[in-house]
């Protein structure tokens, strides 16, 4: 047992007033867990590389229900969601964690309700283990609950989060997605905002037998924000959950995926890319559990790190004793563009079955001199040649996104944040 070094509750000061006001029994349990552990510091193994100090600096209040609609629309424009491929998609827009019907175009062919009305916590999450999930459970006010009925191909749904508060706020959306047997959904989450805030979503994703959920998260939050997301996915027999996170924004971000392959021939992809600069910290953490035989998991994460930014990759693959014939692959690659940029990569394989195929690898490097010279010898100026090679490195990661429209949207939003100088 660790000695209790400081009051866990000290880490909860930014949220104290709201936590003290909780009376609902469903939230009390989460609150209890949270009070016992506090928010993790870097002595907690899973948070060794990522500090939550960001949260200690400012009290974060609950956002008011009102928001500036004009500002919200301008932000949707800026994210490129009101023109081109994104404009025609049904979309659910949340502002400061609350559903904004006036900005939304609800999808027709899915079952839709809202956490704000149902207060239904799902069963896949672990508030007793994951402090940020407990924080979410304690403070969640709203979220989308999407169900795709058996056999239905629901097409694409955009789930947009905008952080638009005048004072530092925190919001804790609670989303759940259920794709029933044989159904399909392409879910595209876009997260943006301005100013200082904490976005702390929890998402539970349930993929039934023979169902397919393609899920892309494009995180381009405010430079002054923290985005700490935890996702729990469960995939049943021959189901497929294909996820990709593109991390571009936020001073501090963590995208933590817990995926459980629950029945034979289930498949999961936990891919991603991040492009960071300045003093940004971006953490991509995953725990993939093979809990049944004959399942497949794939993970490729690419990082482009400039300035004094820091990328964190923690990827654990847990193969339970029953999970024979597991096929697992994991790769983390980093392109470091400056002397001060840093990548911390921690792959972990924990295997209890004896007939499995699991591989993992990591690469770290700078831009290739020969490629740079080749481009420059064709007349491309040095700065532009760099941009082309960075873009290419990430384009190869984005190519892993199976939904072409989601892929185009991700590339488009990346270009909004990082325009390629000169031509294309």
């Amino acid at each position, binding site marked *: 047992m660790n000695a209790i070094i400081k009051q866990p509750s000290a880490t909860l000061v930014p949220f104290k007033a709201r936590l003290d006001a909780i009376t609902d029994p469903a939230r009390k349990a989460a609150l209890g867990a949270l009070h016992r552990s506090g928010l993790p510091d870097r002595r907690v193994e899973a948070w060794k590389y990522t500090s939550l100090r960001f949260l200690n600096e400012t009290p974060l209040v609950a956002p008011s229900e009102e928001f500036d609609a004009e500002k919200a629309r301008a932000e949707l424009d800026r994210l490129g969601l009101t023109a081109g491929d994104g404009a025609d998609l049904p979309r659910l827009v949340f502002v400061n964690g609350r559903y904004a019907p006036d900005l939304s175009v609800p999808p027709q062919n899915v079952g839709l309700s809202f956490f704000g009305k149902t207060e239904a916590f799902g069963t896949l999450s672990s508030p007793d283990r994951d402090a940020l999930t407990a924080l979410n459970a304690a403070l969640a006010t709203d979220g989308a609950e999407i169900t795709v009925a058996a056999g239905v191909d629901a097409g694409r749904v955009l789930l947009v989060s905008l952080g638009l508060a005048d004072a530092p706020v925190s919001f804790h959306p609670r989303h759940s997605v259920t794709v029933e047997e044989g159904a399909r959904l392409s879910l595209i989450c876009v997260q943006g905002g301005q100013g200082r805030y904490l976005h702390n979503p929890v998402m539970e994703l349930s993929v039934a037998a023979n169902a397919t959920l393609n899920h892309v998260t494009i995180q381009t939050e405010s430079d002054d924000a923290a985005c700490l997301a935890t996702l729990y996915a469960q995939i049943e027999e021959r189901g497929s959950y294909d996820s990709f996170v593109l991390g571009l924004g936020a001073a501090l971000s963590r995208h933590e995926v817990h995926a459980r392959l629950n029945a034979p021939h289930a498949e999961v992809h936990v891919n991603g890319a991040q492009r960071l600069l300045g003093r940004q910290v971006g953490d991509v953490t995953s725990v993939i559990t093979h809990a049944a035989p004959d399942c497949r998991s794939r993970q490729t994460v690419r990082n482009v790190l400039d300035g004094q930014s820091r990328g964190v990759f923690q990827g654990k693959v847990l193969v339970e004793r029953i999970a024979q014939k597991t096929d697992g692959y994991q790769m983390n690659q980093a392109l470091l563009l400056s002397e001060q940029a840093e990548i911390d990569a921690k792959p972990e394989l924990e295997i209890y079955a004896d007939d499995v195929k699991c591989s993992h690898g990591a690469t770290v490097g700078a831009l290739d*001199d020969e490629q740079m010279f*080749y481009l*420059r*010898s064709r007349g491309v*100026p*040095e700065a532009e040649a760099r941009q082309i090679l960075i873009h290419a490195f*990430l384009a*190869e990661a984005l190519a892993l996104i199976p939904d072409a429209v989601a892929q185009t949207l991700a590339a488009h939003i990346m270009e909004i944040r990082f325009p390629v100088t000169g031509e294309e």
Partner: protein
Amino acid sequence: MTQFLDISGLCARIDADGQEKEILRGVDLSIPPGEVHAIMGPNGSGKSTLSYVLAGREDYEVTAGSVTFQGKDLLEMEPEERAAAGLFLAFQSPIELPGVNNANFLRTAVNAVRRARGQEELDAVAFLKTAREAAKALSMAPDMLKRNVNVGFSGGEKKRNEVLQMTLLQPSFAILDETDSGLDVDALRIVAEGVNRLRSPDFSALVITHHQRLLDYLVPDRIHVMAKGRIIHSGGPELAKQIDSEGYTRFLAEAA
């Protein structure tokens, strides 16, 4: 002095595993406008190094000598400035650029050079039309414009892609570094025709090769023999046949 390309006393070295290695040991070579010259020579004589130094690769350190290109000090220029000034190097081993679409790459290069030359940039439609025609003339499969630069290309496809780039960039001086290596006879003829199409009073080339075969299709005005980092002999196109039958031994002996 030709006032086009003049290389004088050029010495260059490379830092190989912590050891300074002298590769060019006083190259003197002049190429007048409108002429095609060939350089032949044994392996390790410095032919490729010469081409890299002229194109501006940074791992080589020039320790002595000068290169003047159309009146300008070539060695002072960045690689992209050399390209804009009209110099083109067809690489012996073309570099693969995963994730970079070939058509986008070609258009970026062409427009970068056009910008630097004060010409108007080509829009996507106009460019694609030009590129497709040029690719067709080199018997390249149409999908090669859509693929990533040189990724998964066969040796011959890579070399054709080099000639395609040369055609589109319209250089006044091209260096072809063993563009014939790894090509079958048909491909060789297509590549040579691609270069011949560019021949004009405003286009010069330096062709580096091991084989007389390329020079049958691409007849040079002059042939130079390079050995141990220097040009040791120069002559007319008939020199190719002599080298092919006798090898370099006689020239090496004469130079010693």
